[in-house]
């Protein structure tokens, strides 16, 4: 893709570009959190607990007198990481299994796809609850859970892509000149799946962020003293009527980031998906 085409796509997809900027802003805020705030996210200040937004604390303070904006900046690290890392893991797992399933066919395909069917049959929050119960909460537990919840959908899509590409002329050509199977899978079919995978990734991140926040909201996910937006909402819920800012600020942050990723995903699908381009 040359530069003019890219610029044209960006002009056509203003919402997606804006979303990318919002995401970038969130990421920068999370990375540079210590430089953006004078407060410590864990230090209590009981004298100023549950005070409303003012000049000293732009978003108010929580039940321990901790600055909410500061905690949101640090919480963004966990929430964003919970969106990205597990989604990468589930992409890796799902792609490997999907490719294998579509390429090998037969019994291997049957086994992998039946396991995927079973995973996809669960209501996703319940599946996450079940897995987190089994492997334990906390940062590692939640990340692993999110990765295990989402691989099946990826596997199914990648398998379908693999089957489509396997029947294409360039794969037949490669096969006819004696290219080995693994090389066909990795060098001819996998690259063809990449546009789909980028879209899947972009749409997988917000769903992982939402699942993390749901788990933490229920008290099953991230455990204090670590924090994430979902956990902040959970902790602030007791003070919903006296200090609503405790919960609402992280709620808005989750909504914004989820919205931004969804818009970006839609935009990328329009730009990358060859099936839709013909329309």
């Amino acid at each position, binding site marked *: 893709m040359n530069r003019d085409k890219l610029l044209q796509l960006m002009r056509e997809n203003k919402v997606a570009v804006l979303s990318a900027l919002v995401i970038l802003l969130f990421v920068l805020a999370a990375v540079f959190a210590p430089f953006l705030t004078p407060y410590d996210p864990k230090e209590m200040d009981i004298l100023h607990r549950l005070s409303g937004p003012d000049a000293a604390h732009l978003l108010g303070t929580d039940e321990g007198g901790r600055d909410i904006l500061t905690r949101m900046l640090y919480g963004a690290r966990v929430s964003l990481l919970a969106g990205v890392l597990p989604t990468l893991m589930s992409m890796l797992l799902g792609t490997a299994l999907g490719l294998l399933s579509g390429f090998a066919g037969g019994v291997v395909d049957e086994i992998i796809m039946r396991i995927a069917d*079973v995973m996809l049959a669960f209501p996703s929050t319940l599946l996450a609850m*079940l*897995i987190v119960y089994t492997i334990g909460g906390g940062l590692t537990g939640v990340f692993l859970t999110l990765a295990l919840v989402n691989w099946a959908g990826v596997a199914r899509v990648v398998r379908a892509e693999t089957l489509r590409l396997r029947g294409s002329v360039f794969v037949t050509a490669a096969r006819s000149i004696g290219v080995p199977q693994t090389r066909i899978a990795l060098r001819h079919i996998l690259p063809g799946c990449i546009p789909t995978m980028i879209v899947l990734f972009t749409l997988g991140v917000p769903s992982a962020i939402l699942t993390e926040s*749901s788990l933490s909201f229920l008290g099953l996910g991230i455990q204090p003293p670590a924090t994430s937006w979902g956990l902040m909402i959970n902790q602030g819920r007791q003070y919903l009527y006296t200090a609503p800012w405790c919960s609402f600020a992280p709620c808005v942050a989750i909504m914004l980031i989820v919205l931004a990723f969804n818009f970006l995903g839609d935009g990328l699908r329009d730009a990358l998906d060859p099936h839709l381009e013909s329309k």
Partner: protein
Amino acid sequence: MRQSFLRRLAESVVILIGVALLIFIMLRVVPGNPIEIMMGEHANQSTVDRMTAELGLDKPIYVQFFRYITGALRGDFGTSYSLGKPVSSLMRSAFGNTLKLSVSAAVFAWVIGILCGVLSAVRAGGPADHIFMGFSLMGVSMPVFMTAMVLQFFFGYYLHWLPISGSGSWRNFILPAIALGWNSAGAISRLTRSTLLDVLQEDYIETARAKGLTETTVVLFHALRNTMLPVVTMMAIQFSGMLSGAVITETVFSINGIGRLSVLAISGRDIPLLQGTVLFSTAVVILGNLISDSLYSVLDPRIRREA
């Protein structure tokens, strides 16, 4: 058509067995003797042994699984560790609340969703379209706990119009129904809008207009019928999703339904209860998928003939 239904039914049964097996294995992998965990510090070894034998936990794992499956088929899911009652009766009373919540949420979602979808499709690009689609987009993108808490705060606490939590009267279910249904309403209205816009391009719509029918007749009696095909199947999936227990909604509004029961089971480390609720919920979802698949071929004569 009957054949394809039977095949889907068989597949569903296989998936359900897989689900039961997966739940069973996952809950046995948790380290520690569940009896000791349940009794905490007061555990004395002979009591632990006696309880372990009573609950059949000393048997080999495949025997336990077989017992569990045969029991579940007869509607017996064992006894809850933490509440001391049969899991099946706990689930039955919880399901009543979940059913009330689901039906009210579904009614809200479908009426609002279809209305918004139709109105924005016929006024595509206009201000009404933007308003309704903004409303739908909010529903789709706001996390359920956020919607729920905003509703609680505004209508319950600030305006005192509706109760904040509980499940005593029908008024208790209004806010939870909106919180749970808004998301589905958003999805329904977006689907209705895009499908209706496609259908309105069809030749037979042109014919209907050429006959001089009013636009209202064309939309309501000619276009909407075909629009509803994908919408109805989405409704079936949504409804089974709601019936499987709205964990977050039920927790925020303190409604004793299936979803809240499963949260309770986790915090009480109550394996039979968790096993029962998750198995039940997943079965409901599998059934919903089956119905939605079949609905498609029942409703659409074109597919019925092909299959």
